[in-house]
């Protein structure tokens, strides 16, 4: 425990002195401002066109994609509003978008990069550390704990930035964004642990690429499962997708829960199961990291 705490503190110091958090804060500020300004100023004509596109059924995927349908309904409703209410609705939409793309996607990228870069198990400098009377698993756990600490702090700073910038730009600040960020934290911890495990087993660049691909796949798998279910598609592929969705991390459900909290809704029913699956994968990736590093020739 003492070893882990020492290594975790060292890893955290490395990230802090490496200006990682300042970069995160700066990028979050730019991202929130850009998305907020862009989405809040979408002209009414574009919203009308979007609503029309969903209603027309010209693109069937839009009518069965739950997210697209929801955005279509919102667009449809927004078109008939007076100017002041329209502006408020669009600012609300912009807040949704900034959470999804800046905190959700940006947080995921931060988690993956932290998982990869705090990993020193393949570096020559680890030799001096493991020559001490300590277990390698404690070194791996310490590094990962330090990295996860940075992810949590980074997410908190991104949420703070989101809160401040939405207040400054759109006057629709909402303290619920902190709660929403906490709700999606399990996804980020799994992504960081997965990236760490991959970096323990392979090259840093391969680990980063594969971690991004897998994280995106876990989210996409949720969308594809919903899509197939709504479209009533059955067959071997649909069953295979359903089975994969049942056993793999459910990033989509967790992210949706965060978005629900952002808009004052309660947590969806499947959130508990999704969190349990995330915890199982977190433990699995940590165990893989310890095992691989424990057997590695340094």
């Amino acid at each position: 425990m003492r070893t882990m705490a020492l290594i975790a503190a060292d890893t955290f110091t490395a990230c802090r002195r490496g200006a990682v958090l300042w970069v995160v804060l700066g990028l979050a500020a730019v991202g929130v401002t850009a998305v907020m300004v862009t989405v809040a100023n979408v002209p009414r004509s574009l919203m009308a066109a979007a609503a029309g596109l969903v209603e027309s059924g010209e693109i069937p995927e839009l009518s069965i994609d739950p997210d697209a349908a929801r955005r279509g309904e919102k667009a449809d409703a927004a078109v008939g509003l007076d100017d002041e209410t329209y502006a408020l609705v669009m600012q609300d939409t912009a807040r949704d978008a900034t959470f999804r793309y800046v905190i959700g996607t940006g947080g995921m990228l931060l988690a993956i990069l932290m998982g990869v870069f705090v990993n020193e198990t393949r570096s020559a400098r680890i030799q001096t550390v493991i020559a001490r009377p300590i277990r390698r698993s404690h070194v791996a756990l310490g590094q990962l704990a330090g990295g996860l600490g940075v992810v949590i702090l980074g997410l908190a700073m991104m949420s703070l930035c989101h809160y401040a910038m939405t207040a400054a730009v759109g006057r629709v600040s909402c303290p619920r964004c902190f709660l929403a960020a906490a709700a999606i934290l399990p996804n980020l911890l799994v992504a960081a642990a997965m990236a760490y495990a991959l970096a323990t087993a392979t090259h840093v660049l391969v680990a980063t690429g594969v971690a991004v691909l897998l994280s995106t796949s876990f989210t996409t798998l949720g969308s594809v499962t919903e899509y197939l279910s709504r479209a009533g598609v059955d067959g071997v592929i649909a069953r295979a997708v359903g089975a994969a969705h049942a056993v793999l991390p459910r990033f989509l459900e967790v992210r949706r829960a965060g978005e629900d909290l952002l808009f004052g809704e309660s947590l969806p029913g499947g959130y508990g199961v999704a969190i349990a699956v995330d915890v199982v994968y977190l433990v699995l990736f940590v165990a893989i990291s310890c095992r691989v590093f424990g057997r590695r020739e340094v």
Partner: protein
Amino acid sequence: MPLAAELDGVRKVFGARALDPEVVAIDGLSLAVAEGETFGFLGRNGAGKTTSVKIMLGMTSHYEGSARLFGVDARLPRSRAGVGYLSETPDFPSHLRAREVLLLHGRLAGLRAAEARRQAGELLERLDLATAADRTVRSFSKGMVQRMGIAVALMGAPRLVFLDEPTANLDPVGRRQVKDLLLEMRERGATVFLNSHILSEIEMTCTRVAILSQGRLLREGTVEELTQVSHYVHIGVTEVTDGLLASLRERLPDARVVDRRIVASVRSEAEMDPIPAIIERHGARLRYLAMASESLESVFLRTVGAAEEAVGS
């Protein structure tokens, strides 16, 4: 005397990779280093020295045979209690300050914070790093990083220290400091396992030496044992003739002319007794007759050269 480090029949093979064949790094190596010894480990690059050290430090676990530190299986973390290590290429987290690196290692070695701070201060002072104690390691020169490596290895006042090329990148003053540190450690009863290419350093500091080539132990013994197996006699004469050389070779078979003097190996001083008479018989005059021990460097080159020739033939 209890053993600090031992290898017993260790064989380590690095598996074949895409473009590289299988390599036998260590082949049946057995070594025993007693507590309190300053042990020199010699060998060419790739002889298996660093791999042997890594096996003893538990960094490599896939090998045949056994490795123990203080009688404990080297694969177990507790075997490394009271052990320090200077790697061949010391590298430290670049964001940490010199003092912080030492504190971290002191704590990892099991020291309390106050004791770690005290030892860090002492070592920084001792290795001329006191003025750079609060600078980050990334601003250090190669020599300073090497001195940091030595300081890290000595944190926790280890009973056994593995030093891999401790004087690499050091200036003459730094080398002298390392030599003094080694002698001090010997005085306080610590065991030192020294990998070095600088044979004069090993000759001056080590109580026992082993020579390794292609993963095999060729020779082992005290520096005196290794260097006094044979002596050389240097004979200066007014004129070297073929007849004189032939007569000398009847007694000293390897007698040869080197820089206008005759050099031959002898086993004892007694073998030198007939030399003046032989020289006089051939009408030459003896100018000097001197006996010298073989240097460790010469022993090393001869031993390794012979082993490589044997493998080549």
